[in-house]
């Protein structure tokens, strides 16, 4: 057999995060990801996934990009640069949004935190951070606003899962019950100043802590100790990927890229047309919003134990009608799951088909029957 590392071309030397020593002590399997040296798993990624669903998991997300947009024109600049209505965001709140090319193609999906009236923090995917910073700088040029890539000033730690709140609460005086979903505010955790946000990428309740690089290890260790009795485990990128897939959340490079618009991905809600002024991509996106969709992002479950993977063809009566964007064995459902783009007509037919014999995924040369499944695959119990 060929191991995954052998299948990947060797790139340059990946950049370690401020938590590298922690990962080494934990015996993590490390991997290069978007130029960073990241923990892929600490032990069993399925066990890590299950711990996040049933207890809590601790993630190093320091590869994510942090771009500060500041100044009296920061809100108007972001209204112009992004698809969302950023000037309407209240300080202390966050929003999921996108940055699009003039043709409407997605350059990145982002979380934007408004820290103060004139201060925003744009969190970008690691692979896109430099391009997003460049685009923001160009787009903000006519505004009294400054764009600074602050990625090196931050580490990012996420604690996710049903026990995340009570573990974190034991280390902070900030009342977490008062911190709403998609809120972000300064706080002190384990004696260190952080930006504390109730956001995540797992489908569970949880928090993300932006720390100074030198504070990352003490905060991580304090959370580890505080979570010991509550089943908190460190979790790597492998678990993060299956968690977000079950939660139906898109991953840039899989579901999102410059060839798709937010509408293709079923995320047209991030495009706000009734905001002040023009924004990059407006005309193209308005056209997409009015037109019939070119494709539909769908969920699939597969009957066999073989797993649909990124790039595999989806078949309808044996004919290619779409492509898998992400696929994995679902630890929660116990079957392989996938997200796929289908042509809209096929998606409609497949939704109405009850026999489950016409839709299939071409898994390395054999057509494995598949069923259309509503996204997300997993809803957390409330």
């Amino acid at each position, binding site marked *: *057999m*060929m*191991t*995954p*590392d*052998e*299948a990947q071309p060797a790139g340059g030397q990946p950049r370690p995060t401020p938590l590298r020593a922690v990962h080494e002590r934990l015996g993590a*399997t490390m991997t290069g990801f978007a130029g960073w040296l990241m923990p*892929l*798993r600490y032990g*069993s*990624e*399925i066990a890590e996934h299950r711990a996040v669903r049933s207890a809590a998991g601790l993630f190093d997300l320091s590869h994510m990009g942090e771009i500060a947009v500041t100044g009296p024109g920061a809100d108007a600049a972001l209204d112009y640069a992004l698809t969302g209505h950023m000037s309407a965001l209240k300080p202390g709140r966050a929003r999921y949004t996108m940055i699009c090319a003039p043709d409407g193609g997605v350059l990145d999906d982002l979380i934007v935190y408004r820290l103060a009236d004139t201060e925003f923090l744009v969190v970008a995917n690691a692979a896109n951070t430099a391009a997003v910073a460049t685009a923001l700088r160009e787009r903000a040029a006519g505004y009294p606003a400054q764009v600074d890539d602050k990625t090196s000033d931050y580490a990012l730690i996420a604690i996710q899962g049903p026990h995340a709140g009570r573990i974190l609460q034991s280390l902070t005086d900030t009342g977490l019950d008062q911190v709403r979903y998609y809120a972000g505010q300064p706080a002190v955790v384990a004696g260190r100043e952080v930006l504390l946000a109730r956001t995540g990428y797992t489908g569970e309740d949880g928090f993300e802590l932006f720390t100074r690089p030198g504070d990352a290890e003490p905060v991580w260790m304090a959370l580890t100790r505080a979570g010991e009795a509550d089943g908190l485990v460190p979790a790597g990128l*492998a678990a993060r*990927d*299956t968690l977000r897939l079950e939660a139906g959340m898109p991953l840039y490079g899989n579901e999102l890229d410059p060839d798709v618009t937010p509408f293709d991905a079923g995320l047209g809600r991030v495009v706000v047309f009734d905001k002040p002024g023009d924004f990059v991509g407006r005309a193209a996106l308005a056209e997409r919003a009015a037109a019939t969709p070119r494709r539909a992002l769908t969920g699939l479950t597969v009957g066999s*134990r*073989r*797993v649909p*993977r990124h790039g595999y063809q989806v078949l309808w009566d044996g004919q290619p009608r779409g492509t898998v964007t992400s696929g*994995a*064995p679902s630890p929660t459902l116990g079957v392989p799951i996938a997200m796929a783009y289908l042509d809209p007509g096929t998606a409609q037919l497949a939704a109405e088909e009850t026999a489950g014999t016409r839709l299939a995924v071409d898994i*390395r040369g054999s057509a494995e029957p598949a069923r259309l499944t509503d996204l997300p695959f997993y809803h957390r119990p409330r």
Partner: protein
Amino acid sequence: MTNPAELRYTAEHEWVAVDGPVASVGITDYAQRALGDVVYVSVPAPGTRVTAGEPCGEVESTKSVSDIYSPVDGEITEVNGDVDEDPGLVNSDPYGAGWLMRVRLDDGAAEPAGLLTADQYAALTEEQE
């Protein structure tokens, strides 16, 4: 985990235990660590002929799928039903309960050619790490 000295290995990370006319085959500890959690293993049914160096099955893990190459020429006599029930055995005990298949060798008891010793295989995987 050290690679057992009595086994033979392939550069593609399979191990072989030759016992008279029959060879047991599995994947190495290095391979299972590289793959992560194994969720499904597909090997040929008993009676199927396999050829050394040719793909004969696949291992599905959370992140990837990989071919299994037969290390020997022969005919499948047995597959490990326990691994079908619990693919995690490949992770927890790759050289024991996680064996994948047994092959009756074509050349009777003759030692299959071109396989690596434990030391040779260890040197190969050290290079890759």
